């Protein structure tokens, strides 16, 4: 007998497999050229056979993303606390942040290249700037949602601002923070690969660029798949940490909101 949990998981896994099967079948039935849309089997076999060549690029992209993400996390939390705690900072920084996040990052990459040359540095910076916004917004929102009654209770007891922050506001912010990390880590990948496709000679983005220009579409898709796997893996890591650290916030629904 299978537990309902396992059955549930099997069901969703089989649907995912089914989707790939449908893709495969569609490619065969409609005679779709591999240059337009390769079959999943071809993509997976390319991914497998090319792995030795792809691996250093995957590591490069992963490392760049993690550095950009880590920096984004540190700066994002600092900015978020700043914006969330001070009303003036909120009013000053918020429009700036919204404005900055509205700029397509593809437009920023050339500027970074101009400043730092092509390579890893602009990729790290693009990852950072792409992933920072949700972190800042969520940390600031979390801090701002402290119940006024709770604050009154603590102030009447004689608590200092730091004590309120430490005992109530920061723990209350944790679910928002982790929800933003899950989103931010996938965004960081987008930033890295974006920069790699424009200005680098290493990393999955570069591989995909070169593959498409030589019409090696299965390899380009293999790169996409590698990215997707990395994204899912890192998302899961943060989802698990989130569950450990602030399971109290998701007691009702099984899936946290992104």
């Amino acid at each position, binding site marked *: 007998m299978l537990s309902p949990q396992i059955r549930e998981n099997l069901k969703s896994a089989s649907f995912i497999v089914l989707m790939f099967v449908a893709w495969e079948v569609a490619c065969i039935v409609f005679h779709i050229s591999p240059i337009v849309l390769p079959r999943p089997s071809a993509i997976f076999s390319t991914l497998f056979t090319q792995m030795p060549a792809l691996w250093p690029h995957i590591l490069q992209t992963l490392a760049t993303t993690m550095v950009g993400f880590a920096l984004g996390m540190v700066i994002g939390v600092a900015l978020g606390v700043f914006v969330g705690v001070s009303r003036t900072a909120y009013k000053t920084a918020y429009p700036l942040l919204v404005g900055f996040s509205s700029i397509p990052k593809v437009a920023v990459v050339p500027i970074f290249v101009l400043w730092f040359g092509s390579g890893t540095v602009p990729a790290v910076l693009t990852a950072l700037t792409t992933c920072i916004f949700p972190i800042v917004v969520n940390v600031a929102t979390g801090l701002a949602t402290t119940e006024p*009654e709770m604050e*009154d*209770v603590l*102030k*009447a*007891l*004689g608590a200092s601002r730091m004590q309120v922050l430490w*005992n109530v506001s920061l723990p209350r912010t944790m679910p928002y923070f982790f929800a933003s990390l899950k989103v931010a880590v996938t965004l960081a990948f987008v930033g890295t690969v974006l920069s790699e496709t424009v200005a680098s000679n290493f990393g999955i983005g570069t591989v995909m660029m070169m593959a498409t220009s030589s019409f090696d579409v299965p390899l380009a898709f293999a790169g996409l798949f590698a990215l997707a796997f990395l994204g899912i893996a890192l998302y899961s890591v943060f989802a698990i940490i989130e569950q450990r650290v602030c399971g109290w916030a998701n*007691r009702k629904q099984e899936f946290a909101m992104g």
Partner: protein
Amino acid sequence: MTATTAPAEHGGARIAQLEDVKVRFGKGDNAFLALDRTNLTVRPGDFVAMVGPSGCGKSTILKLVAGLLRPTEGVVFVAGREVGAEQVGIGMAFQNPTMLPWLTIRQNIMLPLKIVKPYSDTFGRDKNTVFRDRADALLAKVGLTGFGDRRPWELSGGMLQRANLCRALIHSPKLLMLDEPFGALDQFTREELWAVLQDLWMETKPTVFLVTHDLREAAFLASRILVMSARPGRVTEDRAVDFARPRTLETTFESEFTDLTNDLRRLIFAARQGVEKA
């Protein structure tokens, strides 16, 4: 920091005093007087209930004494010192129990010990021994034995409000501020909690300010009832309540009790009529 001391006390100690206090909210055209020239002296161990039409400044008085709000004019003294200069560790409970969901009920209740001196000095050492026992003893008194390790979301509204009372009282405050603590509960739970609160109060006799819209609640619990007029708030009636304690639900059926609540109802009704004419 120089805290102004209260004027020389003549006869009877006082724990809280409002002198010619006015509170104005808002600015310009939107400004309004929430509390008009109010004088009030509260003796230690008083159980003061404040009733009146909504928006009459009941909670404003509570916040003034708790030091959460500064008067626009006048002075507020608490325990002989001007409020705001130094806090005295006032216990507080609102209608919303605001238990922190990432802590157990016991940890929630012990939170004031982490903040109020002298407890906070030894919190690290005592939290698993003395303070823990203290929290459990208090939980037992409100009928929550064995719930210390539960999380807030596992408790019903009435149970959370019991825990809320524990949190407000764990550090044996001299002053207890209750802002419609039972407002969101059903009638039966509410009446049960009146008795619980009365028992807790009779043990240590803290000074209590209770804001309520339930006149029976005020008459059941208070030793003194302040009736307030509609905005701008003023104390229009200051009445001592001297039914013998412990009061029980039977007390509420006695004619003196019903006379008192009817009197209060009339006074508040008159205050509301005043608003409509204005």
